[in-house]
């Protein structure tokens, strides 16, 4: 089942410095499947966050269409968007917590918004369970205010909130950026497990290549193209998409450049030890790598 379909999306912004419209996304089409992690990558400024905001209905595209969980949400259909919003969770790049509410209330917020009939004690237990799921001890963190959390903790609370309503689909903007390797691995594992065990679909934007290869079922590389006889950008294009192996074996110059050393190395699916391509068992943990 296709959970996200994006067709021919274009978006321009007014560049106040150059005093003219600047194309950011040019005719972008992509899809994400149920039960898969789809990873979006691309250089800084290529329009990933813009695309993300269009996906979740927070930015209006100039043209194209978006459907989520088989409902068309753009061209704007408020009723569909409202309905679909209950079914997807969003993890923003910086957590985007409500600063005036403590951690527990932040996680309870979407539940109270959409399922106010649930008993307060039940919501409390749900909040605890979600916190444990992101490896935060409820007793220690529930009553803290967001301002007193570290970046990694804030992001994990954001993830717990994204999970609050048991979404069928989760959008992540940079889930592991700026986290220490251990926390980052915990989050990667959780993303992967949610998909594998519960069949949740995930769309992930990330800069971290090792994280991308650890979680992706499908990868999409976006690129900002430059027309040959013109100094202007003509927008971001989908440069290449495929399985992690497809991209690792790609001969396309930008993909090779973008993936850099990752074109020649592979990561153990179990312990993430990086080693030469096409190994059958991991040198470090000994785990066989074939599916």
């Amino acid at each position, binding site marked *: 089942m296709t959970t996200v379909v994006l067709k021919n999306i274009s978006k321009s912004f007014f560049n106040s410095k150059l005093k003219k419209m600047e194309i950011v996304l040019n005719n972008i089409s992509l899809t994400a499947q149920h039960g898969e992690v789809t990873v979006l990558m691309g250089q800084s400024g290529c329009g990933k966050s813009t695309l993300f905001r269009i996906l979740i209905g927070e930015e209006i595209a100039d043209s194209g269409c978006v459907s989520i969980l088989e409902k068309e949400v753009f061209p704007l259909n408020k009723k569909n968007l409202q309905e679909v919003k209950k079914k997807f969770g969003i993890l923003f790049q910086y957590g985007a917590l409500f600063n005036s509410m403590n951690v527990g*209330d932040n996680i309870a917020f979407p539940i*109270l918004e959409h399922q106010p009939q649930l008993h307060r004690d039940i*919501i409390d237990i749900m909040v605890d369970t979600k916190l444990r799921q992101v490896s935060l001890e409820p007793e220690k963190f529930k009553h803290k205010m967001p301002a007193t959390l570290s970046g990694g903790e804030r992001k994990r609370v954001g993830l717990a909130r994204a999970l609050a309503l048991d979404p069928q689909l989760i959008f992540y903007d940079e889930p592991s950026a700026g986290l220490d390797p251990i926390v980052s691995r915990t989050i990667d594992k959780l993303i992967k497990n949610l998909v594998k065990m*519960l069949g949740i679909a995930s769309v992930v934007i990330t800069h971290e290549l090792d994280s991308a290869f650890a979680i992706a079922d499908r990868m999409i590389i976006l690129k900002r193209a430059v027309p040959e006889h013109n100094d202007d950008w003509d927008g971001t294009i989908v440069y290449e998409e495929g399985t992690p192996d497809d991209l690792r074996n790609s001969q396309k110059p930008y993909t090779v450049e973008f993936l850099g050393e990752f074109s020649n190395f592979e990561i153990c699916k179990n312990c993430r030890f990086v080693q030469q391509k096409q190994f059958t068992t991991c040198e470090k943990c000994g785990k066989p790598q074939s599916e």
Partner: protein
Amino acid sequence: MSGYFKRKEKWHKKYLQKDATLPMEIKVEEVSPQMSVIIPQGEIDMGSSGELRDVLHKTTKNKVQTIIVSLEDAGHIDSSGIATLIEALKKVEAYSGELRVVINTKKIFNVFKIANLDMVFKIYESTQDAKNA
């Protein structure tokens, strides 16, 4: 909880409770005064978990020593359903009783496992196993 939520809850109690979702059927088998089997029929989600909570509440209030919740006919359980079971577990443990859960599908087991609750609950593959345990 903040004032916002309290207001919201009050408002909800006043206006929304009427259009709650259709009641879920829950079979209850009183094997003996010390043992009850509770079998929810259909999906346990945010709309229906309240009913399971009511049944469990009654059973734990009577301090039934062994409560078996069979999810064999449930099809699906979400985190509000799981929370309902956790609440019941706490109550049962408070009077040194036992809560046993019957799970016969991978789908439901995974919901417990991903929340690291597969070790918290006593899980059995069939109601018979749970009764005999």
